């Protein structure tokens, strides 16, 4: 027995240190949870409470890299994380446009599209951006038409989608289809939003595409 103890003494020392470190780490984890959420780690704790906390505090910029990492690592929740990432990227993209950063907005829309390439709202948002962005170097009429057609197929008879498709046709130089589609959008839209649609129709009738102010 003594010989056995001597034989593995270095292993025992390392193991004792590792065990100590491990239990200290668990205590550290308890402290982290008490500090950040004033409670013991919940039974359903996963990484999502941290990400949800960032989203609730509108700290989207920090939530995005965590979600991207989650998509690459968490193979069991890929679809759910991709949907959330697309939603957050869309929200941040809109705020980037409002703050005058269309380049940043495009990167985020592309991230959203890469995550959920078949989501109608993402197709619609990216198509609208590519058709109407005030920065001409970022516009791409042909691609906008392709995306908007897919959105229209997924959500037919929808005024907003048709409006986007019209803008895409106009940017691509196809004003005939732009006018036809815009008229259909006006017929389907509620009275309150017909004014904006009509003003865009007037532009298309003059052979001019619509660009964001």
């Amino acid at each position, binding site marked *: 027995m003594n010989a056995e103890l001597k034989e593995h003494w270095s292993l025992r020392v390392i*193991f004792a240190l590792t065990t100590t470190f*491990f239990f200290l*780490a668990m205590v550290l*984890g308890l402290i982290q949870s008490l500090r950040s959420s004033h409670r013991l*780690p919940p*039974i*359903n704790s996963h990484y999502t409470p941290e990400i949800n906390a960032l989203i609730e505090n509108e700290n989207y910029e920090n939530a995005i890299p965590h979600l991207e990492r989650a998509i690459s690592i968490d193979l*069991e929740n890929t679809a759910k994380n991709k949907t959330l990432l697309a939603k957050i990227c869309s929200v941040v993209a809109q705020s980037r446009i409002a703050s005058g950063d269309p380049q940043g907005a495009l990167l985020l829309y592309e991230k959203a599209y890469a995550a959920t390439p078949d989501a109608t709202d993402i197709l619609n948002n990216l198509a609208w951006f590519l058709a109407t962005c005030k920065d001409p170097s970022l516009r791409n009429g042909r691609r906008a038409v392709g995306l908007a057609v897919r959105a229209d197929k997924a959500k037919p008879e929808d005024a907003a989608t048709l409006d986007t498709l019209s803008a895409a046709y106009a940017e691509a130089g196809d004003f005939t289809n732009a006018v036809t589609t815009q008229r259909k959008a006006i017929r389907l839209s509620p009275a309150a939003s017909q004014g904006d649609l009509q003003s865009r129709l007037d532009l298309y009738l003059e052979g001019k595409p619509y660009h964001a102010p």
Partner: protein
Amino acid sequence: MTQQSGSIALGPALLGREFVNPFFDYLLIGGGLSLFVAGFIFINPLGTNFITEATLAYFILASNSAHFAASTVRLYTKPGTYQSLPYVTMGLPVIMLAILVGCMFQADRLAPQLTSLYLTWSPFHYAAQAYGLTVMYCYRSGCTLSDNNKKLIWRVAMIPFLYNFIAMPNVGLHWLDFGGWLGNPATQQTFWFYFKYAMAFLAFGGIAYLWIRIAKTEKQVMPAICGLTLLTNGLWWFLFPPLQAFVWATIFHGIQYLAIVIIFHVRDQLARPENHHSRTYHICWFYGACILLGYGLFHCFPRAFIFLGFGPVESVLLVVAVIQIHHFIVDAFIWRLKKSDSNRKIVESASPALTS
């Protein structure tokens, strides 16, 4: 006379020699409970709403987390393991911790690989457990198996794993598929559609073939619990979509594991000369230790890495992956049935009904 003694022997032989009682063994160790739950979910998909995300977390702690912790508790409480397995008891935790810390620093590159590794390994582990339990019950029930029949049991048990390895997304062959031909729509339509049904036929038909073959070659009856164990091992993978199958298979594998490991622990402890505690004490002690350690491992330990500045995603998922891999390796050692091992004595021991 011969016919009468044969018919008397068939019933008990088919029932097998249980560890606790037939109800307990068949429901929990054999996986019979999972048949009822599988049937319920299959017939009534909306009925799964009675298990919300919040309540599922408690199931997972009580079953999954506790079962992963159970192998560690068993390793360090089983008599003689420090002497017989010094590198598993003292070296392996160090190595796993080093791997964990290393992967934390290279999470982008290494975390997806580690996750795919443990997800690929899991169905193999469940299949190996089904094989181990089958052989154990055969041995315990007096159904001696030749090497060829053991190999056949191994192959039948491994069919669900093989199916997972080849067909499941992001793991197994798909994890290793550099060429991308597995994702080809033509491959999807022609091969995968028939592959699932062929594998299910082999998995379940194989059990019937196994039973007949053992009866013919060994002139003995394989206990029904062995067939049940192999059946339930395959059922979830073939009946449900991959993610759902994974969740439920892990829960019921966890219940099965906890049932058998507690039996072994309790019998080991009751056999110790210095023991002064009751069976109930040892059951509660062991399961309580598993719950506590499971909570610590899965809920507290990842937060230490978050505290140290690592992201929440890699902190949680890498800890989960490393704990599971550690569990798979430990399990390969603590269930051996060598002649000098206490496990062997427990397998050979009488059922409680016979000793009362």
